[in-house]
């Protein structure tokens, strides 16, 4: 028997221990394996193929993020901060970059499923790990629900455009109905196998970027007066500086996506190069798109009027620049974008549950793979179920903020975990990418992530704190016990 790894850096540390030991060990070397460009070779000789390239990684990041910032938030954000909402989006992008860099470093050192959960539990212990893992699972549930509510708004707008709105006019709660049913469809699709989902996602992202590029370039030129348009004159910061920050906290949901790339770190080819490029690249791409979108949108209508259009404001913007075809293109793009974000979040969320169950912080049965379909059906159901319940509330802003809250806690802890791991400098820690500007970048990243939480609405903060406390309670009641028993029970 030979081991077929093709050179590549081999893991200097050693011994693979039986899976049971991994449950209590905080040392990732037990199953990190030797990662080369295209495959991870475990100590048992078993190989895990890497199949996601840079394009795939970028598509995951952009595909997860682009749904919210352009297709849901412009109206809401402009209503709160005026044209300065563009600054709010820029702040969000800056914070996301501060976190993306440390996440890249940790992901290249620990290219494991579960991403952030894995880094934090290995860097700071299983109590933090449990809170982050459960927080990520539910944070993504909130995010998925938020995207699905956005999707429902677009579906309704499409119906309205088709002149079918009269059919539904008698007070039916359309948003929950459409959102919930589509949430169930997505969950079912992911449980029963979606062939070529990645290729589909890549195609959707390319199509989206194409539509957006045409729209934004034309809109920008028009806003600048090239085609003789008079922009609506308006004060840049009509609602005060504080609102720029509260809006940044609201719209940060638009950046929950770059870290999802880390959850598939074990499947990315050439991880040392592609992981940082995919994460930083996707943040930069969507950040620029968001800022331009806000400027173009507020240029078209003025923020007060834009706000009255609600979640689908961008459709009216497109109509004003490009007429009916523009509105149709953006409607279609909005449907795709919100679906792709919801789908990506559901899948990432189930990965977070898997990572938790691998360490026996939740019952191992949750990660069981359905033999027939090859999918973790229980984990997916535990994502899809709560998601549709939340969709039924239809509260876009609260869903968005709670999702951001739970993610920002995680992001802050990622930065702290990097500082902790770098200081203790364990033997297994060999990242192929190192954060530039260490330690300033991770320190700033942590402060900014935790700080942004302070600008959220009270209700969102309260829900976020309750979820975090519940996660901690779960750990102390259930997981402490199990992780000790896990050594014997898991084979």
């Amino acid at each position, binding site marked *: *028997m*030979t081991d*077929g*790894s*093709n050179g590549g850096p081999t893991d200097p540390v050693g011994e693979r221990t039986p*899976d049971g030991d991994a449950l209590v060990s905080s040392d990732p070397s037990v*199953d990190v394996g030797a990662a080369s460009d*295209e*495959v991870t070779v*475990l100590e*048992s*000789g*078993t*190989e*895990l*193929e890497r*199949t*996601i390239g840079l394009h795939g990684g970028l598509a995951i990041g952009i595909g997860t993020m682009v749904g919210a910032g352009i297709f849901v938030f412009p109206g809401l954000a402009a209503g709160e901060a005026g044209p300065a909402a563009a600054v709010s989006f820029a702040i969000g992008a800056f914070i996301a970059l501060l976190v993306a860099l440390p996440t890249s470093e940790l992901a290249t050192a620990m290219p*494991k*499923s579960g991403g952030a959960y894995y880094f934090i539990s290995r860097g700071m212990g299983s109590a933090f790990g449990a809170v982050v893992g459960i927080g990520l699972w539910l944070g993504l549930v909130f995010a998925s629900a938020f995207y699905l509510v956005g999707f429902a708004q677009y579906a309704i707008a499409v119906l309205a455009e088709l002149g079918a709105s009269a059919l539904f006019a008698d007070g039916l709660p359309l948003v929950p109905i459409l959102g919930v049913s589509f949430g169930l469809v997505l969950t079912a699709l*992911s449980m029963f*196998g*979606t*062939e070529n*989902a*990645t290729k589909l996602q890549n195609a959707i992202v390319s199509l989206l970027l194409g539509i957006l590029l045409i729209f934004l370039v034309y809109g920008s030129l028009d806003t600048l007066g090239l085609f003789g348009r008079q922009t609506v004159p308006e004060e840049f910061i009509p609602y005060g500086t504080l609102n720029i920050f509260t809006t940044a906290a609201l719209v940060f949901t638009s950046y929950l996506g770059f870290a999802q790339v880390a959850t*598939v770190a*074990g*499947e990315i080819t050439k991880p040392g190069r592609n992981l940082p490029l995919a994460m930083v690249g996707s943040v930069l791409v969507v950040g620029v798109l968001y800022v331009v979108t806000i400027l173009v949108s507020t240029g078209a209508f003025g923020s007060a009027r834009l706000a009255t259009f609600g979640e689908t404001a961008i459709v009216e913007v497109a109509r004003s620049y490009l007429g009916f075809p523009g509105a149709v293109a953006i409607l279609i793009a909005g449907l795709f974008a919100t679906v792709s974000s919801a789908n990506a979040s559901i*899948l990432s969320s*189930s*990965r977070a549950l*898997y990572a938790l169950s*691998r360490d026996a912080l939740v019952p191992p049965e949750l*990660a*069981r*793979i359905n033999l027939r*379909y*090859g*999918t*973790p059906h229980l984990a*997916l159901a535990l994502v899809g179920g709560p998601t549709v319940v939340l969709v039924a509330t239809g509260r876009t802003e609260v869903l968005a903020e709670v999702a951001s809250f739970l993610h920002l806690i995680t992001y802050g802890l990622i930065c702290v975990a990097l500082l902790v791991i770098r200081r203790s400098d364990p033997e297994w820690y060999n990242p192929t990418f190192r954060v530039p500007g260490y330690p300033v970048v991770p320190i700033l990243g942590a402060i900014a992530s935790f700080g942004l939480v302070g600008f959220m609405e009270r209700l969102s903060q309260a829900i976020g704190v309750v979820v975090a406390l519940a996660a901690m309670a779960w750990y102390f009641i259930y997981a402490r016990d199990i992780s000790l028993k896990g050594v014997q029970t898991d084979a």
Partner: protein
Amino acid sequence: MRDPDDIRVLVPVAVLEGQVIPDQMIRLLSQSTVVLLAYHEIPEQTAPEQAREQFESKARIELEDLVEAFEATGAAVETHLVFTHDADQTIERIAMDADCDAVLLPNPAPTIDRIIVPVKEDINIETISKVVAGIGRDQDVEITLFHAVENDDAVPGGETLLDSLVGKLTTLGLDQKKLSRSVVVAQKPLQALIDGAADHDVVVMGEEEPTIRGRLFGETSERVAEQTVGPVLVVRRTLRSEEESESN
């Protein structure tokens, strides 16, 4: 270093899907080094690690059974166990890394008595003859060298091509009595080959495109594998063999 006569054959097996390698095929590869690739393809929503944890032990047991079956015939066996989202990518990577001369596209094979070897002018004759000789030398098989031409005028050229292959194979120690030649005039060479393959048990054919990072299987070999009942052994066109054929 590698023994120049040793042929290395990649045998991919979807290990947890009950795919079996026919005994006859195992016997045919008894003089080869068999690179046994047990793979399990999983959907994208499942992490390979996750599948690995659940299925590794079962896959290992299946793999050991296969190894025993091959080793019992005298073949040297190397193994890989891979969890992947993309079986084609994995097969291609292992074929490159393990320096394989040929890849088996397994189909059921009740008996293996007759082997057909389609030949084209521009194909990697060197490796094909090495593989055919390596397989056929110690087996009781009939080997048909097959060449399709478009019109009658091209028949003599085809005969010459096959003659030169016969020469190569006998030099490599293959008994000339096992060999027969068939030059067929046909408008559709691929269909002619599929028809010709109908009364044979195994197809040994060259890979279409030079593969560095491209697709492993040219369209032709895939279609042949789909439309014939027997296994197809695809002879890879490696950089190494190209260099050899150029220098010859």
